[in-house]
């Protein structure tokens, strides 16, 4: 299994600002994923980040709002841009298990509160 860390673990931000969340993995992985977990709800996939290519966004999520970087096989960032209170969520990154079985390992999450 992979060990995943995220920074920051939590933050309180003002409306209109942006926050960049970092995800670091202890091994090289092909695919990294970013999820959002809104209060009291399940996980929703924001985008898939592959090294060396543009991230693939799910319906309802756009690159201008959630730009993603994937500079190498162990690191990715997600930026939440021009934040509003509706962006208050837990943001999680995950990595695949190096196979086609879809087993994923999750980071501890970043709890974002927008005031």
């Amino acid at each position, binding site marked *: 299994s992979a060990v995943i860390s995220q920074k920051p673990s939590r933050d309180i931000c003002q409306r209109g600002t942006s926050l960049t969340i970092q995800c670091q993995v202890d091994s090289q992985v092909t695919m990294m994923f970013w999820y959002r977990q809104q209060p009291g709800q399940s*996980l*929703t996939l924001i985008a898939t980040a592959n090294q060396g290519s543009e991230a693939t966004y799910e319906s309802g999520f756009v690159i201008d709002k959630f730009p993603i970087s994937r500079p190498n096989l162990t690191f990715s960032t997600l930026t939440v841009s021009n934040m509003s209170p509706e962006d208050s969520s837990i943001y*999680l990154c995950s990595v695949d298990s190096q196979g*086609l079985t879809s*087993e*994923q390992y*999750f980071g501890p999450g970043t709890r974002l509160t927008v005031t």
Partner: protein
Amino acid sequence: AQSVSQHNHHVILSEAASLELGCNYSYGGTVNLFWYVQYPGQHLQLLLKYFSGDPLVKGIKGFEAEFIKSKFSFNLRKPSVQWSDTAEYFCAGSKEGNMLTFGGGTRLMVKP
């Protein structure tokens, strides 16, 4: 559209009671199924997984799940719950590639 649904949103049990959490999926064909658990203040952890073979899979902490293809179900079970099982449980599935779809989650509270 492919989806995963969990019908029990909140479950309250006493210690030693038996647990069964429902999960249904809408995929056709080959499917990979998972149960994840999120303990209070902790991150998501994989409880168990089904890819193929024996439809009864055993996971960590005494949990098991049964894949019933005819019912499109993958229910999670534990014969005797403990207070430490209090957590939120998520069923997830995928059909191809690495795209996981999560169910809405079930919050389990075990009373000591």
